[in-house]
């Protein structure tokens, strides 16, 4: 069997490709102690060893990543490194190429926190459009916290002072230690199953970052996201956010604050009720005043005070009208009289007696006035009328004029 020799460089490149091909080695977090820490004066890259009691690994951190370290690293410090594994061909050593350095303990928790946060955020569990409004006047409020903690006392104190009318459904769960997450999940399940709570407060009082870390559980976050009713999260510190805070519909800085956000203040409601009552009374009073003023205006009007006035004034009006009517009639009669006189003068002028007086006579035969020569014959008797008498004459001769 023939063995074909390769160069050292070929060997190292092959091993390097194996390391870089393993995805698990391309994103690792390792905890250990810093030693042989050196910052290269020219390039600014960091070279050091990460070790524990029985092992060590060579590490590099390039300047671009080194500038993101939030503290001053030095030998003996316990840290968590995040980075990838590869091989340096020149000396065949594998190395951790660090991209992030965090202090151990807090560092590990912080790392997990960031990872969980990024994951759930990407899934939309923190989306503002999924946040539900907190009911204004909740009738039943479920509280998930430790029944031995100060948080519970604070919450109950404030709820009873502000809004004692709400019913509290208390559901104990440990809030730190290994039992915390399973107990909180169970408590929430029971509340969901009961189905009567309109609002859930979950939280605990302040403590160390480690004490609060159960509220960064991914399982708890998903359970809270699935809540059928709005959730207020209140986890210890005022400044630090937990994953529960991000996923809850509302975040309260402390358990007391959660209770204040959960219910209205009954003393404010008393004030509002007082204001309404005063307003109603004032409105009714002014309405009454307006109506009674209108009434008394009507009541004191002359129509009601001296009703005869109207009759008297109407009577006067009637009298005046009657006078006018009479006057009109008189005027009319006068004008008729004048016309009559005028006409009678005219008639008088036309009277036949007047004509006769001027020397004319009227001839009549058999009682009929004769105005035509053909109406009479020779020998006829005609009567001639004079103003003061008449004469019967005989026709002796007649001549017709043409």
């Amino acid at each position, binding site marked *: 069997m023939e063995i074909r020799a390769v160069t050292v460089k070929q060997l190292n490149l092959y091993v390097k490709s194996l390391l870089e091909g393993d995805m698990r080695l391309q994103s690792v977090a390792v905890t250990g102690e810093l030693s042989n820490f050196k910052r290269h004066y020219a390039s600014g890259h960091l070279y050091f060893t990460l070790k524990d009691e029985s092992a060590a690994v060579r590490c590099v951190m390039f300047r671009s990543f080194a500038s993101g370290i939030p503290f001053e690293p030095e030998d003996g410090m316990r840290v968590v490194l995040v980075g990838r594994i590869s091989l340096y061909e020149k000396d065949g050593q594998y190395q951790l190429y660090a991209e992030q350095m965090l202090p151990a303990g807090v560092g590990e928790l912080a790392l997990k926190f960031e990872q969980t946060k990024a994951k759930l955020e990407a899934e939309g569990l923190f989306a503002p459009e999924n946040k539900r409004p907190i009911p*204004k*006047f909740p*009738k039943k409020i*479920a509280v998930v916290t430790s029944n031995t903690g100060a948080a519970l006392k604070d919450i*109950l104190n404030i*709820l*009873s002072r502000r809004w*004692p*009318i*709400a*019913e*509290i*459904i*208390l*559901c*104990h769960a440990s809030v730190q230690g290994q039992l915390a997450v399973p107990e909180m999940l*169970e*408590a929430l399940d*029971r*509340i969901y*199953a*009961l189905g009567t709570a309109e609002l859930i407060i979950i939280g605990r009082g302040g403590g160390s970052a480690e004490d609060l870390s159960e509220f960064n559980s991914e399982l708890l976050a998903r359970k809270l996201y699935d809540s059928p009713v709005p959730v207020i999260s209140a986890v210890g510190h005022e400044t630090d956010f937990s994953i529960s805070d991000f996923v809850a519909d509302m975040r309260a800085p402390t358990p007391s604050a959660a209770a204040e956000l959960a219910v*209205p203040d*009954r003393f404010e*409601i*008393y004030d*509002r*009720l007082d204001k*309404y*009552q005063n*307003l*109603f*009374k004032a*409105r*009714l009073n002014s*309405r*009454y005043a307006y*109506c009674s003023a209108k009434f008394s205006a009507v009541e004191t009007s002359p129509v009601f005070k001296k009703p005869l006035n109207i009759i008297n004034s109407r009577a006067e009006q009637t009298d005046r009208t009657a006078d006018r009517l009479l006057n009109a009639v008189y005027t009319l009669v006068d004008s008729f009289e004048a016309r009559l006189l005028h006409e009678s003068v005219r008639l008088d002028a036309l009277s036949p007696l007047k004509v006769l007086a001027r020397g004319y006579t009227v001839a009549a035969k058999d009682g009929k006035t004769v105005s035509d020569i053909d109406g009479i014959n020779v020998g006829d008797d005609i009567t001639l009328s004079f103003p003061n008498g008449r004469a019967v004459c005989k026709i002796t001769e007649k001549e017709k004029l043409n």
Partner: protein
Amino acid sequence: MNNGTDFESALKELEKIAEKLESGEISLDESIKLFERGMELTNECRKALDGAKQRIITLTEAEKEVENDD
């Protein structure tokens, strides 16, 4: 009235009554009726709050409600 008082709808109704009374476009008769309804509602709300004692129920593992007497 007790825990069942619906403050949200009561306060909404009070707001409406206040608006109507302010509008002045209603008869005296109607405004007296509104006034009476308003006073009744405010008194009910006040009574519900005055007499309230917080009821605390403990939800145990047995999924039963156990009432605490404070």
